[in-house]
C-alpha cells in the first residue's frame, strides 16, 4: 500500500520510536486502570498512556484531538499485557498519520485494538491472576515456613518473629511478581511496536501455553508441599502432649474442612459459602454445648 505523506499532520513519525515517547508511554501504562468505568472500561487509562506518542505523531491539534477521541472508545485488557496493545497501536497510528482520512485503515486500527485486547486479556488472566498471584502467596508461606513462623497455620501461636521475616515473606512474592509484570509491559511495548498493524501481533512473543503449563505445575508442586508440610507440622506440634484420640480428632476436623472446600468448589459456590458453614457450626457448638475454651491448635 502506498502511503501519501501529509506534512500538515505528520510530525516526523519516526520520532515515536525514540526513547522519550515509548518510555513515557511505558510509565503511563501503569495507570491503565485509572478511571476504570463501566461504560468504556479502561478507555481513560489507555488514552492517557498513548497521549505522549500521539503528541509526537500528530502536529496539528485537530488530528491529535481526533486521535485522542478515537482512543476514548471501549477498551479492556489484562493490565500487565497492555504494552503489546499500546506498541501495536502506536505503530498503526504512525501509519494512519501517513495516510490521513483513510477511513478503512482507521476501522482496521480499532479492529486490531479490540482483537489484541481480548487475546492478551485471556493470556494475562491465566498467567497473572490464575497462576502467578497464588504462587506469590505460596512464596510468602514458604518464607515464613522456613523462618519458623507458624502463626499463619496455628492461629493461637504467640511467637513474634522479626520484622525481616514478617515483611520478607510478602516482599519475596512481590519481587517475583513485579519482575514479570514490569518486564512484560516493557517487552510488550517494544514487540508490539515492532510488529504493529497485525491482528495477532505479539501473541507469539512467548510460548504462552508452555509458560502457563509450567506455572500450573510449579503452583501445584508448591501447594502439595505446603499442604503436606502443614500436616507434618500439625502432627509434630501435637504429638508430645496430646492423646492419640485428640490428635485423630484434630486431623479429622482438618480433613473435614478440606472436603468441605472440595464439595463447595464442585458445586460452584464461593469460598464464603464454606466459611459460612464453618462459622455457623462453630457458633452452634459453642452456644448449644458451651464446651469452654477450645482451641484446637496450640
Amino acid at each position, binding site marked *: 500500500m502506498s502511503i501519501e505523506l501529509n506534512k500538515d499532520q505528520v510530525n516526523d513519525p519516526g520520532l515515536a520510536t525514540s526513547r522519550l515517547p515509548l518510555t513515557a508511554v511505558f510509565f503511563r501504562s501503569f495507570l491503565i486502570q485509572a478511571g476504570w468505568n463501566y461504560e468504556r472500561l479502561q478507555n481513560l487509562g489507555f488514552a492517557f498512556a498513548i497521549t505522549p506518542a500521539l503528541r509526537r505523531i500528530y502536529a496539528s491539534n485537530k488530528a491529535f484531538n481526533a486521535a485522542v477521541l478515537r482512543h476514548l472508545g471501549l477498551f479492556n485488557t489484562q493490565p500487565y499485557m497492555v504494552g503489546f496493545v499500546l506498541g501495536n497501536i502506536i505503530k498503526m497510528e504512525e501509519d494512519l498519520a501517513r495516510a490521513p482520512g483513510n477511513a478503512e485503515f482507521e476501522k482496521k486500527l480499532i479492529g486490531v485494538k479490540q482483537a489484541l485486547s481480548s487475546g492478551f486479556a485471556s493470556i494475562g488472566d491465566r498467567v497473572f491472576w490464575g497462576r502467578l498471584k497464588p504462587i506469590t502467596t505460596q512464596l510468602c508461606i514458604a518464607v515464613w515456613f522456613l523462618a519458623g513462623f507458624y502463626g499463619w497455620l496455628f*492461629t493461637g501461636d504467640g511467637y513474634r518473629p522479626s520484622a525481616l521475616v514478617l515483611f520478607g515473606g510478602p*516482599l519475596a512474592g512481590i519481587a517475583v511478581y513485579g519482575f514479570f509484570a514490569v518486564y512484560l509491559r516493557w517487552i510488550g511495548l517494544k514487540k508490539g511496536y515492532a510488529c504493529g498493524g497485525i491482528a495477532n501481533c505479539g501473541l507469539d512473543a512467548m510460548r504462552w501455553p508452555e509458560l502457563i503449563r509450567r506455572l500450573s505445575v510449579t503452583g501445584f508442586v508448591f501447594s502439595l508441599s505446603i499442604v503436606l508440610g502443614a500436616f507434618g507440622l500439625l502432627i509434630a506440634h501435637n504429638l508430645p502432649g496430646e492423646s492419640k484420640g485428640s490428635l485423630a480428632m484434630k486431623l479429622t476436623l482438618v480433613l473435614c474442612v478440606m472436603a468441605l472446600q*472440595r464439595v463447595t468448589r464442585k458445586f460452584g459456590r464461593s469460598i464464603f459459602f464454606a466459611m459460612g458453614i464453618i462459622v455457623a457450626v462453630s457458633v452452634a457448638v459453642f452456644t448449644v454445648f458451651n464446651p469452654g475454651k477450645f482451641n484446637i491448635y496450640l
Partner: protein
Amino acid sequence: MIIVLKALISSLFAGLLQLDNVQAGQFLISRPALVGPALGWLNGCPAEGAKIGLLTELIYLDFIPVGGVVPPCGLVAAAVGVLGFAFGGLPESTAFFFGILAGFLYANLEYRLRVLRSSWISGIEAQAKDGTLRLERRLAGSLLIESAMTGFYIFIFSWLLALVSGFGFCAGFGALFRASDLAYSLMPWLGLSGLYFRFSTQVYKK
C-alpha cells in the same frame, strides 16, 4: 487519643495503598499479606497483623478480577481486621471475620465509584473534541476519590468494630468469641485447600 490517631493514619495509609489494588501500578503492594503486617506494625501487633493478612489473602485468592467483576477487597478486609483487633479491641479471630465482611461489603462501594466515573465520559469526549481535555486531572481526581473513600470506609468500620467490641464484652458474648476462635483456627486449612484444589484442577484439566 494516640490510638485514634494511629487508626486514622492506618486508614489513610491503607487508602493510599488501595490505589495499587486497581488504579495504579498493581505491583501487589496492596496485597493483604503485606498490608496486614504493615498496619500491625503501625499499631503494635505485627504478628497478629501478619496472620490476619495472610489468612485474608488465602481466602480472597478464590476471587479473580476478570473483566468488569468487582471482587471483594482484600486490602480493606486486612486493614479492618487489623484495626478491629488493635483499635477496636476485638479478639483477633472475631476481628478477622469482621474484616472479611468489610472487604465483601466494600465491593459495593467500588461498584458505585465505577458507575460514578461512567458519568464522566460524555464530558470528557466533549473536551477531547474541542481540545480542552486535561486527562491527567480527571485521573488524579479518580485516584483521590478512591483513596479518600477507602480510608474513610476503613476508619468508620473500625469505629463500628470498637462499638461492637464494647457491646460484645458487656453483653457476655464470650461463647461467640470462642466460637470464632475455633472457626479462625480452621481458616488456614480452608485457604490451603482452596489453593491446592485450584492448582490440581489446572494440572489435571484435559
